């Protein structure tokens, strides 16, 4: 997906490398930001902050800690959750539940022009793995992942026992790990 050497070039101040990094990752990060924030404008504003932060602090990237994509996804998710919490602290209630998030998405524009065959295969594999989860497990994971809720908050939201929520998340994550593990053990995930 993203060559690790591309980040090394960005560290050196290579603007062309930074442009390529944006081309290869912006759709995924923007999709994630929209899913969390439920708003295109705010997602675009977030991505601007994220990429500028990447540009300034790319030297902190440690290849031993994960792939470049994982790093960018984690950073974007972290900043989006921060915004979400800041918004909540101001009394704004976002309608970014799973159903609402789906409702805010625009029509699927199709694969990114920078998406490779391997990228498409991986995306299909992830879609299949997530879709293969029981609805309850998928819901619990998405509330934690995209809305930043703790298991206790999820239990309140779903009106389920705390242990049940924990089990759903653990089982769901384990199934996703088992189904997708080949993508990073084979070194195909960049």
């Amino acid at each position, binding site marked *: 997906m993203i060559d690790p050497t591309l980040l090394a070039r960005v560290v050196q101040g290579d603007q062309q490398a930074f442009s390529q990094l944006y081309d290869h990752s912006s759709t995924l990060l923007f999709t994630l930001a929209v899913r969390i924030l439920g708003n295109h404008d705010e997602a675009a504003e977030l991505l601007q902050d994220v990429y500028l932060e990447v540009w300034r602090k790319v030297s902190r990237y440690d290849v031993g800690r994960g792939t470049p994509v994982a790093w960018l996804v984690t*950073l974007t998710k972290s900043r989006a959750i921060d915004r979400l*919490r800041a918004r909540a602290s101001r009394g704004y209630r976002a309608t970014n539940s799973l159903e609402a998030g789906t409702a805010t998405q625009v029509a699927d524009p199709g694969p990114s022009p920078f998406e490779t065959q391997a990228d498409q295969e991986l995306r299909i594999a992830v879609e299949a793995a997530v879709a293969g989860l029981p609805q309850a497990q998928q819901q619990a994971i998405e509330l934690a992942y995209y809305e930043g809720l703790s298991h206790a908050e999820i239990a309140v939201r779903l009106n389920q026992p705390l242990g049940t929520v924990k089990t759903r998340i653990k089982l769901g994550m384990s199934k996703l790990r088992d189904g997708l593990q080949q993508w990073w053990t084979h070194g195909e995930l960049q």
Partner: protein
Amino acid sequence: MTHEELQESVPLYAAGALDRIERQALEAHLLSGCASCHSALKDYQSVAALLPLGLSPTSPPRSLKATIMAGRNPAPIPTEAASKEPARPSLEPGEWMNHLFPPTAPARSLSLPWALGLATLLIVAVGGYLVWNFAAQRSVDTSNIQQLEASLQEKSATLAGVHREVGDQAKALAELRNEMQQRTNEAAEAKEQLVQREAELEEARVQLSQQGGARIVGTPQDELATLLRIPNVKAVSLTGSDMAKRAAGFLLYDSRTQNVWLYSVNLPESPAGTTYQLWAIYNKPVSIGTFQMDTGETAHLLVKKVPSFKDAKTFAVSLEPSGGRPQPTGQIYLLSRS
């Protein structure tokens, strides 16, 4: 929390579902160096990073790239400068590298009691890890020492075995030497017995010839050959005196059988009523025997069982009246070289 509880919280951590206390407990545990939890977390974080791929893609506005490219100031911060920024004390839920990218929003900032609690927990965890590490290192050292001791004992046993083998071989060699010495002695004894048997045989032959008369008389050559076969026989040469300057001779003496054999040449014929007599001279002359010279130019004399004359300094042959004399009275004809 037990290790099992911490381990079970790893997938929830990666999904971002832990509350603050649980998150900090797991982070402290990870900082203590638990390899199994680290490995599990790496897998679950890889899963978490893939989740957005399951969403329907949404492209960003076209103008966003230009805005971002235009806003890239200042230039990327070098590693050294970036490392000087204050590090966050904790990771955000499921965000394994969030300590590198502190959240910009002030929400959920740490209170002082939480910070102190976390600091205490970290100190305890690091201290525990150091103690565990010291104990593990000590265990490894002890194990190494035990292995070295075992190896040393094995080498010592091998060395003792080699010593025993060398000792056995030395003992076998000594036995072989003794046996060889014994065989040598036996061979020498057998050789001596053989010589003795030959001498006895020769003596028996002489006696037989004396008893059997002229029919079985051995030739001088036979006598000489017999004597020459005897090892360590002594030889003394004799030269003619002024009475017989052309005369010469030599005698052979076998100390074991005490036989003396004299051979002489060019002695004058002994007149009638005289005889040649052989003397061994110690402090005083001792007669060994008499012999006649007829017309021949050579003569020989075989004397049996003469007294030992190993101390004799000189041998001489004189002409004496028939039958010989106890002491030399006539002229000396042959004299040994002293």
